[in-house]
């Protein structure tokens, strides 16, 4: 827990998205329906309209915890700001919200998101600032989990998606795939999002992956996908820790893009029971130091298995096999 040298509100701000509309190149506005955002997932998907928009206006409603407007509050000049930040494009913008009525805890307003400014995901937070002990601009409360604003996604899903592409490795115009012609799939963690290239030259593989027939094919398909996902998360973890920025004092900086998301999800399984920042320092020390990197591999693999939900899909296929055998016996 952070310690603050001044009084603050001791609960987080609750943030809701109330509307999303797009401004189109001809200047007209196109309101998106509520399927473009999800309160449960705390995510807004702006990709539903494809590429043809210039900016999006997100309507916000923020509820401050009790006490912000108390007559005896130790602060004055309360202001509420929405801040949109994007680690991939270094964009940081903010918008002031207005109090919906005097003495109200509810603050409303909107923030604009420019399409040219984002590739993927930006993060949206709300801060309440005030003058406390004669110091202006101090944060007295903020949202605890930021909303995700995804400029590309068609659906408001918070989890990070993989890009899966089917190509014939032998004939692909991507010549660098040709040396891998024997492999059923390979993982490329060097791109903006991790990509699995599935080799359509392997006969039957594409059909199996495309199958939605139910039955055992479906289970095999699922297991295969989780296997790929395990490969992906392992590769992604390694590329993320290999790419870390290092502060002058030698400590690693948490990445602000999807690599950061992946690290935050996997680190608790790699180095359990410590804060993720400390876990990252441990991993970095082990990787660059003399000892302990080899020993960590098992844990990285375990984290990838957890992330890919291998256990669940394996249980599914085992159950399927048992049922199949029972079917042939009777």
């Amino acid at each position, binding site marked *: 827990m*952070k310690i*603050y*040298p*001044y009084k603050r509100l001791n609960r987080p701000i609750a943030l809701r998205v109330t509307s999303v509309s797009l401004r189109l190149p001809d200047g007209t506005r196109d309101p998106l329906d509520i399927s473009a955002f999800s309160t449960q997932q705390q995510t807004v998907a702006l990709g539903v309209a494809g590429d043809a928009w*210039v*900016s999006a206006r997100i309507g916000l409603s923020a509820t401050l915890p009790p006490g912000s407007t108390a007559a005896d509050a130790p602060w004055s000049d309360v*202001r509420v*700001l929405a*801040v949109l*930040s994007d*680690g*991939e*494009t*270094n*964009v*940081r*913008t*903010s*918008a*002031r919200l207005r109090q919906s009525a005097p003495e109200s805890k509810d603050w409303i307003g909107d923030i*604009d998101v*420019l*399409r*040219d*400014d*984002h*590739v993927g995901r930006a993060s949206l937070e709300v*801060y309440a*600032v005030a003058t406390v002990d004669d*110091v*202006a*601009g*101090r*944060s007295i409360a903020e949202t605890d989990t930021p909303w995700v604003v995804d*400029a590309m996604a068609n659906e408001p899903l918070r989890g990070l998606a993989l890009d899966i592409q089917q190509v014939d490795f032998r004939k692909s*115009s*991507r*010549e*660098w795939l040709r040396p891998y012609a024997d492999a059923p799939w390979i993982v*490329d963690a*060097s*791109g*903006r999002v991790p990509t699995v290239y599935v080799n359509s030259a392997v006969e039957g593989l594409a059909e199996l992956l495309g199958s939605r027939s139910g039955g055992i094919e479906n289970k095999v398909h699922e297991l295969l996908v989780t296997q790929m996902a395990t490969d992906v998360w392992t590769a992604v973890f390694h590329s993320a820790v290999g*790419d870390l*920025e290092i502060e*002058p004092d030698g400590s690693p*900086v948490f990445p*602000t893009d999807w690599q950061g998301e992946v690290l935050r999800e996997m680190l608790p399984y790699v180095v359990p029971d410590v804060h993720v920042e400390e876990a990252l320092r441990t991993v970095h020390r082990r990787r660059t130091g003399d000892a302990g990197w080899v020993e960590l591999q098992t844990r990285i693999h375990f984290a990838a298995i957890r992330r890919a939900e291998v256990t669940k899909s394996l249980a599914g296929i085992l159950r399927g096999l048992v049922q199949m055998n029972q079917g042939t016996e009777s």
Partner: protein
Amino acid sequence: MIEKPSHIPARLGFLAGTAADPFLREELLQGIRGHQGVDLAKVVDPLPEEDPRWRVDPIRDLVDDAMHEFAGNRTQADAWLAPRLHASLRMTRREAADRRLWNHIALAVAPDYVVWRHLPNKSEPRTAPERFRGPLDRQCFSRLWWAAEIFRDGNDYSPVVTAFGNQDLVHTVLRSTWIDHRPSAQAVVRLLEAGVVSTGREINGLSVAINAAGATLLYDALAPDVPRDPEPLRQWIEDATTAPPVSRRHLPDGPDEEPVPKESVATLVGHFTDFFETAPVRGRDTEGRV
């Protein structure tokens, strides 16, 4: 030093990190021998044909001029090249975030420049691979473009030149998240200009202090910026079709975006100076004297 590739593509493309890897050979990194560029062309994904922005010539010419002009002091090439690269390669941040484009420039268009600029002056020198294919604030060309984007004040590139006057500033500060707030970026340039900070240690100390104070102070509230308007940049990009090559002598103009509000910069200059004066900086005693 290496020669430029005998085959230089006519247009920019995308070179995926994985596809680029086999070309990062030791002899290239050590500045012994470059590649011919022919094999590399096979693994590049093309960009849309009709867009005139992706012509290679203007960039290759700039790079040649920079190597000629700054043969005696290659670090100084940054301050000259950054605004000119930014004004020649007119892009949105969305486009410029794609590392594949920068990989292509570094490996296919100007590997000789990367080695010229970043090969260390020591025995058995080796260029860091991240200068070819690395994070945006480290890669040879993306760091220039992005520093120009972050430090320009609307259409005015002069703060970019000031920022590059001190390599430590760009090196330390570009990866910090607080620099993404435009008034903060301008305030730091002012501090450098005024001589409040100058050494690498001081800049580090300042950056740490700004970051630490940012845990409780919201700079966006203390020093508001104007809302972003997408139109000036779109217009500037559209004008790329007819724009002449950038001037070698005078600073070019950037997109006609609204400058950072002066009051906001002044407010932060005050705050940052206070933070710095009370911050622990290595090599400085407690009275704040260097």
